[in-house]
Each structure stands twice: as C-alpha cells, then as structure tokens.
C-alpha cells in the first residue's frame, strides 16, 4: 500500500513542557490507523501539527508527493475533537462553504452533500438552520463537511463521541467504506471496541511518547496475552502456583489469571490442578480496552513482556 502520510520524529513543547516527543508513524492508502492514548497524551497536538494548524519544533510531516512541511490542505479532511459549526447558517450553506475552502467543485459538492444527508438520515435537512439540529445531527453534518471533498487523507478526532449506538454504527460503516475506497484514515478515539472493529493499525501514546505501534493483529498477538477467567472459590496461592500465570486479579465472583506470552491455551489448560473449583471457565485475549487502561495507568510494564516482529513499543 502507498504511504500517504509520513510523520518523523515529531516534537513540540509549550512553555518548556514537552507535549510530544519523537513521534513517528505512517498512514497508508486505504487503511484505518488509530492514534490512541489517554487524555493529555498528545494526540490532538500531533493531529494539529499534521494539519499545519500548529508547527512542530522538531521532526517533519510529509505528505505523498509534497515537500516535508508542506500541507496539501484540499486533500485532507478533518473532523476535530472540538465540535462546532456556525449556528445561524443553513446546513447546505455550511457544507458548501467547507467544500469551497477545499477548492472542490460546488455543483459536485452539492450532489454529494444531498447523497450523504440521505445516507446519514438527514434527508431534507439541507435548508434547516444548524441551530435547529440535535448534537448528533450536527456531528453528522460536520462529518459530511470533512469528507465532502473526497480527501486522500481523513483525520477523525473522536468521531464516535456523543453519538448514540445506532449513529456510531452508521459512522463505523461509513468510515470502513471510505477506507475501502482508498481513503487513508487517521482516527483518534477512546472507544476501544470501535477501534478494534475498524482499525488496521494503531499507534498508542502516553505522555507525548509512543508506547505501542503496529497492526492490530500484531499488537494483540504480542501484547494482548491470554487471560483465563475462573468462576469458583479457590485459594489465591493455588492460583498463583499454576505454571505460566503472570498475575492474579480477584474480582467479585471471578478470578482472572493473566497468562504469560506465547502460551498454548490447550496445553496450558491441561496444567490446571484437578482439585480446582470451576463453575465457569473462559479463556480469551486481553482486549484493547484493557491494554489502553494499562497504558494509561502505567501498568504496561507488567503486561508487555517482549517486542514482537512488526510491533514497536
């Protein structure tokens, strides 16, 4: 796949405070790449530096076919985290203004806007004032505004926040469709279930630095070890003495055994003591959500043991 965006060693400081440091990643044509991290990790600053809204102190941002630092604004679509549209204008006027700013033909933009309004359940709302729309509807209009000009690179900062589950599903489908049609998508979100469903690769950062970078599959293979959840009353010492158990967490009715990397689930199950009380047992991988929480709470040193091929930590 062609690389649409290359970010190399990006660094930015505000008042002597390093906000981001040595940030490097690529976004390829037709892929959905997630930028993840807790609040204040530096995601929005990274995005603003890519967009040319801010300028990095170090490093470069390079778009395919352009010199480093040159931002081809008409080829980028952007849905910022801070949602906003002019309140006292009509929906269609707002979308067409955003298309005009991107040098996109207005006639074509109008047709696309009508199509997307219909697709996102806003048919007939073109002449409605934005202040009359609900928050979710406004977000859909803003989403349309970000893709109206058929961008090569689409940057979505928290696209699912504030949406009801139905709208989230609509957005998810639309994002996947755009990627299938060749748009490179950089997506920042806190909704890990959504990220797991739509993203091909992810870049997780904390305190302005890279923590994990790789394909979702590799990340899960390398960092998302298996965990075994057992429902039943058992002595903690017995559980801790089971081979290849990294740590034990007791919850209300169940105990979770976090297993070491590279275990073979079937073989490991055979190592369980016969006298173990088991009412229910499940074995699955640690979710991205749990990885995220561990990163955000600085527990990842316990979780991530090694570096996998194609995955960087």
């Amino acid at each position, binding site marked *: 796949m062609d690389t649409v965006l290359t970010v190399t060693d990006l660094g930015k400081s505000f008042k002597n405070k390093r906000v981001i440091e040595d940030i490097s990643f690529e976004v390829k044509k037709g892929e959905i790449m997630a930028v993840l991290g807790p609040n204040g990790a530096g995601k929005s600053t990274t995005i603003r530096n890519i967009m040319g809204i801010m300028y990095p102190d170090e490093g470069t941002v390079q778009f395919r076919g352009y010199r480093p630092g040159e931002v081809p604004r008409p080829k980028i679509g952007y849905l*910022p985290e*801070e949602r906003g549209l002019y309140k006292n204008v009509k929906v269609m006027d707002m979308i067409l203004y955003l298309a005009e*700013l991107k040098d996109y033909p207005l006639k074509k933009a109008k047709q696309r806007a009508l199509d997307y309004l219909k697709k996102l359940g806003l048919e007939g709302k073109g002449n409605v004032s934005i202040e009359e729309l609900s928050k979710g509807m406004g977000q859909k209009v803003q989403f349309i505004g*970000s893709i109206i000009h058929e961008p090569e690179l689409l940057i979505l900062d928290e696209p699912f926040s504030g949406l009801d589950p139905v709208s989230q599903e609509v957005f998810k489908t639309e994002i996947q469709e755009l990627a299938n049609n060749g748009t490179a998508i950089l997506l920042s979100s806190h909704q890990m279930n959504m990220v797991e469903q739509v993203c091909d690769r992810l870049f997780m950062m904390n305190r302005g630095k890279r923590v994990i970078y790789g394909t979702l599959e590799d990340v899960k293979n390398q960092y998302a070890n298996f965990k075994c959840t057992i429902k039943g009353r058992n002595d903690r010492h017995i559980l801790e003495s089971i081979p290849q158990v990294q740590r034990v967490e007791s919850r209300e009715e169940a105990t979770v055994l976090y297993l070491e990397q590279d275990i073979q689930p079937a073989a490991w199950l055979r190592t369980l003591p016969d006298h173990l009380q088991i009412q229910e047992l499940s074995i699955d991988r640690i979710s991205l959500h749990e990885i995220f929480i561990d990163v955000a709470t600085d527990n990842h040193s316990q979780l991530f043991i090694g570096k996998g091929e194609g995955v960087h930590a």
Partner: protein
Amino acid sequence: MRNSLKVARWEIRRNLKSKSFLISLISTPIIFMLLSFGSALFNKDSKEMVTVHVLDEIGVYEQIVQVATKNELNWNVQRTDANETEFPKLVKEQDQSAYIALTQEGLENGTIYVYMSQDTPARFLLETRVLEEPLRQQQLAQLELTDKQMSVIGKGIQMEAVSSGEEAATAGAGPDKADRMKKLIPGAVAGMVLFSIVMTGMMIFTSASQEKKEKVAEIVLSSVTTTELMQGKIIGYFVLGITQVMVWMLFLIPLALWKMDFPLLEYLLVPEMLVLLFIALTGYLLFSAIFVSIGATVEDMSSTSNFQGMIMTIPFIPVVFLGPLLSDPNGLVAKVLSFVPLTAPSVLIFRLSQLEQWPWMEIIIAIAVLIFSIWLAMKAAGKIFKIAILMYGKNATPKEIWKWLWA
C-alpha cells in the same frame, strides 16, 4: 490570498443573509433620515402657507409683497378693506390666516397689531419682523428726511465677525457658503464612510469571538491558515461596511438632492474626496486589526473583561477632544491628534473638512505614520489571532496577550 477571499465571501454572504444585519442595514438610513429631516417632517410650521390680509392705510402694500417674496416667506399677501374692529371675528372664520392693520395711528404709536387665527404657526410673528424695515422707512419718510438719511437710519447697525490670519486677506466679502460646503460635504461623506466601516469593523470582534465560541475555528483552519482567516474577515467586513454606505447613499442622496439647494454630486466628485476616503480606509484597517485580534481572545462576550470592552471604545477617543477640535481645527490639539494613529483618521477627516487650505505636509506625514502603524498592528494582530483563536474555554488575560506579542 485566494483563501482570504473565500473567507471574505463567506462572511459577506453569511451577514447578508442574516436578518439582524439586513434590518440594521435598512433601518439605519431610515432612522438617520427621520432624525435629519424629522424636524421638517413634523414641523408643519415651516411649510404651510399663511394668508396675510393687509389693511393698508399708509401705502406700503407693494413693498410688503416684495419683502415677503424676497425672504421666501410662505405668505399669500392680500389687501383687505375690512375695518380693524372686524379683524378678531374675521380671523376666527379663516384657517391659517392673519390680519395686519397698517394704520396711520399704529405707525405714529410704533405699534402694529397682528391678528392671527389659532392654527397660524408661531413662527409667523417672527417672520413679520421683516416688515419692520419698510415700516420704519415709512415712519422716517413722514419726518421729511432725505433719501440718504432715511436709508442710513433705516438700516441700523449690525456687528459682523471677520476672522484673523491667513484668511483675513481674502475675507473682505466674508466666507463664501458655497466654498465651505465644497469642503464640508466630502468630509461629511468620508466621515460617514469611516463611521460605517468602523462600525461593521466592530462586527469582526464578534465574528472572531463567535468563531471560538462555536468552535468552528479548528475546522476552518484545516483549510486555510490563520493569516488567511484573519485577512478574510478584515476584507469581508470592509465590503459589508462599504455595502452599508452604498445603501445609505441610495437612500440619502436622492433625498438630499430633493431637499437641499446645492449641487451635492458636484461637491462629492472632487479630487479631495479620494484623499479623505483613503484616510477612512486607513482608519478601518487599523481598527479592524485591533478588533479581529482582540475578538479572538474572547470566548464569552458576557464575561468580557474591562480590557476588551475598552478596546471597543478606541475609535471614539476623538470625541473627548471635540471641544478643542471644534473651536480651532488648526490648533495644537488638532495637530497633535493628527499624528496619533488611533485618533488620526477621524481627526484628519474632521480638520480637512473645516480648513480652507489643506496642510499637505502634515497630511503626508500623518498618513505615513498611519500606514506604519497599520503594518505594526497587522503584525501584532497576526501573532495574537494565531494563538488566541485555538484557545478554548476561557478569555485571554491582558498579560497573556502581551506575552503572545513577544512570542
């Protein structure tokens, strides 16, 4: 620049579709017209014709008709043969009428009785004072004086001021009203242009603040640079200001041509007008740079600090000096204020509309100072706007703004 023009077009379209802007666009000239011509519209006095019946026992009827015509009085003068004793009754029977008894007895006593109907305007009695001179002439004629003696005594003595200095030499015939209007009219129009574009310029403050409040800045800035956004707003609101002036002119010029008896268009289409309009433009650029940058520091207009509120009053600083400016448009205060960038545009326009001779050297230096100030203000505005427009959640403090200037 292309992107700036796109932003400008958007601001123009958005405002021209806004009900509040359209209402103010139309209502302002209407209010202005009502204020300007209100007295004429409501004061029927000055329009309505009064039928003046003259009982002429002393042979001055023809002179009275001439005096009324010469002074453009709305009098319909008619001779009457009725007796003075009937006047109170007659005057009750006729609307807008007056009876004047020019009797020998009245002339000798020095008191002429004027009988007016109830609806006769109050100004009428004042107007009858124009009759004093022919009646005094008549009084004197009866004293058998020579024509020259009568003319000298009848004229009386009046005091007339003659200004000193440069103009004194040419003031022999007194100031020419037409010449004064030639300066005053372009000055008044340039002042109106400055007022209008500065007022719409103030809308930039709201627009920049709204951009932040409605959190649109970031999405717009993904397509244009901060400088382009700022420039677009300045250009857009300039066009709106000019549009406003054009609409005002459309209302006011035909009305002025109809109501006033001087060649308005001839006075407007003079080379001096270009200089005055250029000064108005410099004023707009200076104030708009200040408004757009400070507007970007305000997210919540209702909690705007005194500092930001004070910024809005900057264009009105010259009002404080109105007294010295009016009393001497070429005095020290006026000269100093011409070189202070924040007061220069309006003070220059005011002075130049008053002065017979334009001080060209002063004008050139003042405009040079203004242009340099605009360059500085735009540079500073760019720095403030760039940081402030993306700072959400609070209004910037003067300390922060100061820091950004030097960042």
